[in-house]
């Protein structure tokens, strides 16, 4: 592994991943839409702490037209792409305002498809590389409380599964990461059970391990695999009455 491209490097998980991969010797390209000032400080910090090269680039998940030139213009083509961008969105607003629903779908799904497809084509041609993308337990069964987000993540999980099968022939690994709750800016204020909540660093460690072991799908906290198994097996006539 030489160079890692981090899509969504301003997120807590993105920052933890950048540090974890840099610690293991990777040069890092930080890609984020916002916070240019913070990104350049983060880049300096990682370069100094871990003695690696870092760069910052601007990336907008929703500007699909820019994605090809974004990728072509990268200073170095990445050996590993870690994509962690996404938004939780506002579920209530999305039920009333399609613009919000669309933003949730486009950021979590369409944006990912657009950029990861470009990455996949390049890696397929080279016959090498790893794509790691963070999806969500919310995508395993649509729940009353966040099904717009869940639907986008379900689509993303399906996309990644197909992408993995396609790239398997070309020595390119696609890894789906299912974190469960993460203690980050995204869920700030939400009370989540401690046992079910991972820290950003735990997610980053899980991603590093998945990369090393060439996993297909990883649950950062293994308990979530069982929780979702149970949730998925609840009969619909009961599930629809539950407040999940």
């Amino acid at each position, binding site marked *: 592994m030489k160079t890692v491209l981090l899509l969504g490097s301003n997120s807590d998980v993105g920052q933890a991943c950048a540090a974890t991969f840099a610690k293991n010797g990777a040069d890092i390209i930080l890609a984020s839409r916002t*916070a240019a*000032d*913070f990104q350049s*400080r*983060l880049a*300096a*910090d990682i370069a*100094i*702490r871990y003695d690696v090269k870092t760069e910052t680039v601007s990336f907008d998940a929703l500007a699909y037209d820019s994605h090809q030139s974004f990728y072509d213009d990268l200073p170095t083509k990445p050996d590993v792409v870690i994509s962690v961008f996404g938004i939780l969105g506002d579920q209530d607003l999305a039920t009333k305002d399609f613009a919000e629903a669309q933003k949730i779908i486009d950021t979590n799904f369409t944006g990912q498809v657009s950029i990861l497809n470009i990455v996949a084509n390049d890696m397929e041609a080279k016959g090498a590389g790893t794509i790691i993308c963070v999806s969500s337990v919310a995508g395993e069964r649509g729940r009353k409380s966040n099904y717009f987000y869940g639907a986008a993540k379900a689509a993303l999980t399906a996309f990644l599964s197909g992408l993995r099968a396609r790239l398997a022939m070309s020595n390119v690994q696609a890894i789906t990461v299912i974190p469960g709750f993460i203690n980050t800016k995204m869920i700030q204020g939400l009370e989540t059970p401690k046992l079910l909540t991972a820290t950003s660093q735990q997610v980053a460690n899980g991603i590093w391990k998945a990369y090393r072991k060439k996993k297909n799908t990883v649950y950062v906290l293994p308990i979530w695999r069982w929780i979702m198994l149970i949730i998925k097996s609840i009969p619909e006539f009961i599930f629809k009455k539950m407040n999940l």
Partner: protein
Amino acid sequence: MDKVTNWGLYPTVEAEVFQSSDYKELSEFVATQDHIIPRGNGRCYGDSSLQKKICSTLSLNKFLHFDTERGILKCESGVLLSEVLEVIVPKGFFLPVTPGTKFVTMGGAVASNIHGKNHHIEGALSLYVTGLDILTETGEIIHCSRSSNADLFVNTIGGMGLTGIILSVSLQLKKIASSYIRQKSIKAKNIHALLDYFESYNDWTYSVAWIDCLSKGDQLGRSILMVGEHAELDELKPSEAGDPLMVHKKNQINVPFTLPSFSLNKYSIKAFNFLYYNKQFKKMADTVIHYNPFFYPLDVLDNWNRIYGKNGFVQYQFVIPFKNGKEGLVKILEKIAEAGAGSFLAVLKTMGEGDRFSAPISFPTSGYTLALDFKANKKTFELLSVLDEMVIDFGGRIYLTKDARMDKKVFEKTYHDPFTHGEKFSSIQSNRLCI
């Protein structure tokens, strides 16, 4: 609201703690507050960084620039010295000045104008700070150095956080050949012998003495003086020479809970001091040891502050001028031994002249400086009030970073130069002392 307390676990306050890595957010927060104090890793002992509203710098944890040619490091104020060491030691550099723990932030170190075992030769941190970025009370970020905004620069170093929030620090580092220290330790049978040794080993870069505060009479001030120099490559053992710039290990032993407050008493401290003094048989011993046990012997014990029990402890550190040194130290040690209010740790050092690059309330000035820990209780506070008077009489002063209980009158009699700063940044300590 959080309960916040510093290293001495005394006092504890209810406070609202704000923390951000975003300069704009920080600046907006500062601009809209009445009274706040910045706080780093909470390793000052008392109430220097306590207030109803606290701005934590712990999210300001980025290294910004490292010039390995000139040995100048720029990092944000919430970076710990332990992290700095991890970055600079492998490149052949060391902190120009370091306190007895590496778990303080850079910002805290600057605000306290820390001194180390080398003050008598190399001075305080103020001599090595080359630039600061400070968020001032209007919410404006000001870069300052000796040549630009010099007043703000000087008043911030040793200014106890009262001039603003330090965002970043540029520091001139020290070149080293190895991360090891050539150490000599000398047993002194009493305070008189110790002060003679301090004089004869005065040209060593690092020196510090551990004193047994419970011995009396002929043995008053029984101690071990340790002096050291950065080891050159040819002074290392073959096992060390393979990795001469090895960084400290992160292994820590945790004190998992607060000990009952009776665990440390006259007898257990006596036993500890006896063992400590007698672990070295010879009068003099030469060794080469890693910087970690030399500078940071207590850092291996996480939360060692819990050994004093839940009521916490206070540290008392003063300096008295050399001319009154012997008389002053003897009288003060007699008073402490007489009170039997044994101190687990009593550390004596010498300091050189103060400098003009630090705030009027900065501590370091020429003389002997003694630091002692006491359980926080009524008896201790009574003893310390007596010691305050003695310190005043001997022309000394007390280190604000360690203080939690000094009286305003004591402060006024010992810190003379006027210190002007805005109203916004204030701590419980600065309110108590009317700084």
